[in-house]
């Protein structure tokens, strides 16, 4: 079977997309990335708000902010060893 002519014809079967094609993809990509960014910023904002709220809560409860108050062992410092011994 001689397919030489057909083979030559098949080699010419090339196509391309117009410039609109590039533009539509780039537009979709920029929309996608814009949609992703607010979700990331809202997560960061949410986290920051949570931390500020916690710090404010601790300050209102203990009247100061220290490592001990953050860890919840602020009262332990004020307890003397004799008081602790009385527990037992």
């Amino acid at each position, binding site marked *: *079977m001689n397919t030489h002519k*057909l083979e030559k014809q*098949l080699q010419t079967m090339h*196509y391309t*997309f117009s410039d609109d094609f590039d533009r539509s*993809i*780039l537009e979709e*990509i920029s929309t996608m990335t814009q949609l992703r960014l607010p979700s990331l910023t809202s997560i960061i904002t949410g986290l920051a708000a949570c931390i500020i709220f916690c710090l404010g809560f601790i300050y209102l409860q203990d009247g100061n902010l220290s490592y001990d108050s953050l860890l919840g062992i602020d009262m332990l410092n004020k307890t003397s060893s004799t008081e602790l011994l009385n527990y037992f």
Partner: protein
Amino acid sequence: MQSFDKKTDYELVDLTIEGDEFAFAEIIRRYKGSVATTAMNMLGDVEDAKEVGHQVFIRFFNTLKKYRKEASLNTYLTRMTINLCLNFLKRRKNFQNRSYELKNAMSVSTENGISDFESKDVVNSALQKLDNKHRTVIVLRMIKGYSTLETADLLQLPKGTVLSRLKRGMAKLKTILETEYNYEYT
């Protein structure tokens, strides 16, 4: 805007991952022809080919970090295009019944001899009458110019299967063109 002409494909991929949209625009510019050729010959319809081509580049953008740079970008995108075309064809059960504006192309080809443009349309129409498996091999091997081994690797088929599908596919295509479109291949 910096010039991307001399950048390699891998450099463009890295720049896109870093957030450079112009680098991705260059990737599209370089490979839209290759994607269009595969999609158009697999699907036979401009709008369908555009839709699949669009999906190819969007999917590639979303999975850029998974691209391991083992295969060339062209081969990687061709594999993606073939897979998406086959999925597209599965979804469209009525695909094989489409005529793809054959009548006009046929009447011109039989009366006055065939210009390149018309001949392209007719051959594309004939291609669409083949089974997916035969068409895929012909598109990769004969149109895209991959070697038999590369085609086998792309389709994850044994080399012998590619050769037999190619031989059978070419014979069928020739018969379709001769009997249905009055082409002469002597």
